[in-house]
């Protein structure tokens, strides 16, 4: 058996292992689907791990310290840019650990599952990082 063939076999074994790993990775929490709130409300399914993008509706954040839970509503468009609060998604986040940028009107991504009752159970909550703020300043026309 030539050395080239031996190497090719080795490479094939490595490639095969890598593919097998990929196939065996479809379990929970390994990957999630990303959707905007509008897309999610159209074709989101109950119980599927998903990340949903939206904006925190004004005045909806409630911290329940005793129950270690934060609830809020997410709407599709930025409230400051005139986005309506209609069809907002009710989110229950089972933690008190909110990101620093999480506040009224913040752009957020909630990760979790939709419950049959129609509330969203979030296990993770991300808020937009402000190195985007060149664009934000331009969008909102603030100060500049």
């Amino acid at each position: 058996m030539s050395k080239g063939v031996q190497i090719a076999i080795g490479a094939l074994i490595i490639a095969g292992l890598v593919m097998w790993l990929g196939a065996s990775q479809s379990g929970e929490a390994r990957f999630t689907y990303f959707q905007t709130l509008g897309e999610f409300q159209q074709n989101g399914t109950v119980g599927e791990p998903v990340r949903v993008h939206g904006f925190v509706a004004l005045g909806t954040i409630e911290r329940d310290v005793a129950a270690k839970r934060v609830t809020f509503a997410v709407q599709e468009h930025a409230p400051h840019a005139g986005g309506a609060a209609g069809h907002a998604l009710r989110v229950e986040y089972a933690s008190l650990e909110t990101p620093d940028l999480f506040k009224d009107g913040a752009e957020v991504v909630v990760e979790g599952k939709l419950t049959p009752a129609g509330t969203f159970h979030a296990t993770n909550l991300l808020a937009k990082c402000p190195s985007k703020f060149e664009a934000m300043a331009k969008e909102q026309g603030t100060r500049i």
Partner: protein
Amino acid sequence: MSDLGFYAQWLALFVAAATAIAGAAAGITRSDDWASVARRGVYALFGLVTAALLCLFYAFATLDFQLEFVAQNAARSMALHYRIAALWGGQAGSLLLWTWMTVAYAAAAITVQRRERALVPWVCSVLAVNAAFFLILLNFASNPFDKLPPQHVMSDGNGLNPLLQHPVMMIHPLVLYTGLTGFSVPFAFALAALLSGQLGTTWMRVTRRWTLWAWCFLSIGILLGGRWAYEVLGWGGYWAWDPVENASFMPWLAGTAYLHSVMVQEKRDMLKIWNFVLIGLTYGLCLFGTMITRAGLVRSVHAFAQTEIFGVLFAGYVALLAVAFIAALLARVDALRSPNKLESVVSREAGFVINNWLFMAILAVVFFGTLYPKFSTWIQGREVLFGPQWFDGYLVWIALPLLFLTGVGPLLAWRYASPANLRRQLVAPIAAAALVFLALLGWLGVGEWLACLTWGIAALVTTTIAGEFWRATKAKMRGGISAPAALRKLFRTNQQRYGGYVVHLGVVFLFIGFAGQALDTERLENLAPGGSLEIAPYRFEYKTAVALPKQHYGGAEARIALFKHDEPLATLTPEKRMYWLEQQPSSIPAVYSTFGEDVYVILTAIEPNGSATLKVFVNPLVNWIWLGGLTFVFGTVLVMWPHPSHPQRAAA
């Protein structure tokens, strides 16, 4: 002053274009006159871009708010050093800094390597094309010298993102850019070799130190990024497989593979085509990484926002460079075929080939995981995102064989390694690995077998490295010299090999730290003043919160007494800050750090009722990562340290 910068930046574009043409003319006609025009062009380019950069620094120092870029990134309330650092806190300024670094490298490389007369003209040309591209971006898409319309000029600016106002963040971009732009030198020499037909090992030999230099800075830059995430972002970790992190990790992977495979060409005259491919890939990934971060190509927590034209220009340039490089390589493929073939699968060169395969496999996984989300919408109709578990779950199985190879590879002889000899050398390391693995498994339980396996392999690699040093030092000591003198002589006569072992030891420490993640514990608790929570053997007692009366930010600092086995250990003071000007909150964690573990506390919130919500982590072995980083860098310095007695250097 800002006008001066504006015009210098414009003029630089024309000089870059002229230099590119002069360099190519010199390369084709072999005329010394053209060559000297090209060289002077590079120096002029360096002068002009330096002038532009200094003008922008001056604008930040004097707070020239007429400039849109200054107004967006600086504010009167910021200290001078952060105002200076604000230059690379935004897109346009960091792009100018990047351009300055590439032209500084170009000027330095053609000065130090001026004796390579056949290559230098093409090097000038390639690096001038590269600079011209960035100058096009600066002048047309993202100009730091753009002025605000007069009616919009205000007396104060937006200020730098407070998360970036941190000492590590001042230097992290500088270090990272020094690394990423540094790969332009070996890339330019490789392309020059292809264009000029000087296909020997010259291009590789003269750029060896340049490559190590760039690689060293890239490694430090990646580690500093992790350190910053750990100390500032306050989520308890240092690496999240964010696209921006991956963007700097991908060229590192390709560059590391390259550093290994060049040794095969030096010793055995093999893998010549592959080495060209690897250096092309490395620099391509440096550019590609900057592109995906800057052009907003991927969804990331901290990508720069950008206009569409920027992304189109960038993608066009990366594609153009890739096509040019591949075409040049294809034209020389026949001349590059090696007369030597792999003689045995159990040999040093085969070890390097497997090493390269594993690095490429990691690269493929990271590349796929970073970019697939972008294309998944077209393929699956929905956007798929990969979390850290996806990356970790995949990469463990490639990284562990690679770590194992770190231990075994150096024991393999070139051409053909005798199995009997190998077996004899591997007895002690494998025994050490088995001992560590089984002992830790007994202590921590079967559930942690993967972490235990990692530490076992770490023991194997450490033992082989120690064995290598021991055998070689003993051999040198036969001449009757002392052990330290023998060790010094070892580094002198075989700098690359023994310095390389120190780098490998750094890698071992890094893996020891990474595996510690398996034992991380975290708790979220709401505590009234006087209340406490326990993660054995630690107890955290929340005493009180005090206001933070600082100039730029307000907020609160929690005072937490830390006990271990009920003995008082330290007072931890995590902070929750609010930056007034930017209206941005920020959590600063408090860390009690030892070599065994880090106790890491985040003040999540002070609730309206006066209680504090705390998130507490006990992260074992994190300090091994920073220790590994230092060892790694020390090893790299040993490898590239110039020795006056070294014959190669003496000739140069």
